C-alpha cells in the first residue's frame, strides 16, 4: 500500500524538484528574516545572535546548491571564528548592550537613500549577469581541484590575502601594546 502511495505521489502533477524548491524558499525566507532582525534589534547581543543565524542559513543555501565545501567553510570561519570574535568584543566592551545607551540615531533619510542605492546596484548586477539557466546537473567541485587551483592558478591572490591578514594581526597587536604604556 505504501509503495503504491509513493508511486502515486511520484507520478502526481507535482514537479519532482518542488521539495528542493520548497526548502530553498524556506531557507531563503529565514535568511531574510534573520538579516532583517540583525538591523532591527536594539540590543547589540541580539544582533550578533541573529547575524550568526543569518550566516548559518546562508550556509544552508550553499548546501542546497551542492557547494558543500563552501557551506562548511562558511560555518567554520563566520560562525565559528568571526561571530565568536564579535561576541567577545561585545562582552569586553563594558555595558555596550545596556538599555541606558542609545543604539539608534536620527540619520534615517541618509541611510535609506544609501540602502536604496545599494539595492539598485545589486538589482542591475543580478539582471545583467549571465546566469546558467540550463537544467543540466553540475558536478560538485572536487576538493582536489579546489586545492590545486588555489596553489597554482590563484596562488598570487591567495598569498596576498594571507599577507594582508598577517599585517592586520601585527597591526592589532601593535595598537594593543601602544595603549598599554
Amino acid at each position, binding site marked *: 500500500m505504501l509503495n503504491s502511495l*509513493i508511486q502515486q*505521489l*511520484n507520478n502526481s502533477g507535482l514537479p*519532482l*524538484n518542488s*521539495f*528542493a524548491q520548497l526548502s530553498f524558499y524556506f531557507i531563503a525566507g529565514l535568511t531574510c528574516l534573520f538579516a532583517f532582525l540583525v538591523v532591527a534589534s536594539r*540590543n547589540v*547581543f*541580539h544582533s550578533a*545572535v541573529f547575524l*550568526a543565524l543569518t550566516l*548559518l542559513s546562508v550556509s544552508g543555501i550553499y548546501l542546497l546548491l551542492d557547494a*558543500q*565545501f563552501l557551506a*562548511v*567553510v562558511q*560555518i*567554520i570561519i563566520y*560562525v*565559528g*571564528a568571526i*561571530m*565568536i570574535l564579535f*561576541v*567577545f568584543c561585545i*562582552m569586553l566592551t563594558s555595558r555596550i548592550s545596556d538599555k541606558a545607551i542609545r543604539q539608534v540615531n536620527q540619520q534615517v533619510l541618509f541611510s535609506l537613500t544609501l540602502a536604496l542605492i545599494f539595492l539598485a546596484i545589486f538589482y542591475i548586477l543580478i539582471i545583467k549577469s549571465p546566469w546558467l539557466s540550463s537544467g543540466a546537473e553540475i558536478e*560538485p567541485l*572536487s*576538493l582536489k581541484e579546489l586545492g590545486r587551483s588555489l596553489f597554482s592558478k590563484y596562488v598570487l591572490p591567495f598569498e596576498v590575502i594571507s599577507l594582508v591578514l598577517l599585517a592586520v594581526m601585527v597591526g592589532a597587536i601593535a595598537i594593543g601594546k601602544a595603549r598599554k604604556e
Partner: protein
Amino acid sequence: MVKFLDIIFNTGIGVALLGFISASAMFLIWWERKVSAWIQNRFGPMRVGWHGLLQPIADAVKLLLKENISPASADKLVWWLAPFFAVVPAVMAFICMPFDKNLIARDLNTGVLFMIAITSICVFGIFMAGWGSNNKYSLLSAMRAVAQIISYEIPLTLSVLTVLMFANSLSMQDIVRAQSKYWFIVYPNLTIAFIIYIISATAEVNRAPFDISEAESELVAGFHTEYSGMKFAMFFIGEYTNFFIISAIAATLFLGGWQGPFLPPVVWFLLKTYAIVFLLMWVRWTFPRVRVDQLMAFAWKVLTPIAFVNLLIAGLFLIKTR
C-alpha cells in the same frame, strides 16, 4: 532529483539517529556515574533497574516534569535560544557518522570538516547561556569556555589535518577505507596526532582536567547555573552527545572506524568509540583540574607548536614515500 521515497527514507534515518543519540546520551550518563563510583570506591546508582541502568530514564522524567524557572533579569530571547544551540549542532554532526560500510546518513565529501564545523557552533550556545543568564558566574564561565574552546580548536584541527594528509580524503568513509591494512595510529606521526587530538578534544567538550568553565568550587555550576528542568537536560544531552562525537571521530580517524575481524562492523565501531569514552572518563575522575593560565599556556605554547611540527614532518614523510 528528489523522490518522495527519499524524503520518507531520510525522515526515517533522522528519527533513528535521534533515538540512538538520546539512548547513547542516557547510557553515557549512567556509565559516567558508574565509572566515577568505581574509581571512588562507591556503588553509584543501584536502585532503578539492574545496577541502576534505568536511573537516567528516571532522571529524564523528573527533569521533564520540573517547573520551568527563568530568572527575572535574564535576557529572555538569548536565554531561551541557548539550549537549542547546545543540542542541535551535536545532532547534526551525526549526518557524517560512519557506523558501518553503508550505515551513514550522508557520506559528504567534506565529512570531517563538516563535523568539526558543526560541533564548533556549540560554543555559541554556551556563550548565549552565560550572557542570557545575566549572572556573573555564568558570564565568567562562558568567557572561560569560549577562550578555551577556540584555543584548543587549533591543535585539534591541526591533528585532524595530519590524518587527512595520510588518508588523502576528507570523507569519513574514505578515511576508514584507507585504514584497511593498518590503523592510522601505528604511524609515529599519527600517534602524536592522536595524543594531541585526545587532549584537545577533552578540552573542547569541557571535561576535567579542563573543566574550568564549570569549576564548581569557583563558579557554582558555570554557564548552566540558572537553568533547570528540560533546558538543563538539553545542555546535559548536548554535552554527552558531543562527548560521543569526539570519541567516535577519534575511533574513525585513528583506530580504523568500523574495520575489524570477526565481529560485525557496527559492533567494532561502537567498541572502539566506547573504549575512548572510557579512557576519557578515567582521565576525568583521576586528574585534578588545571588552572586557567596553565590551560591557555598549554594550548598555545605546547600543543600548537607540536602539532605544527608534527604536520610538517608528516608532510615530508609523505613526500618521501610517495
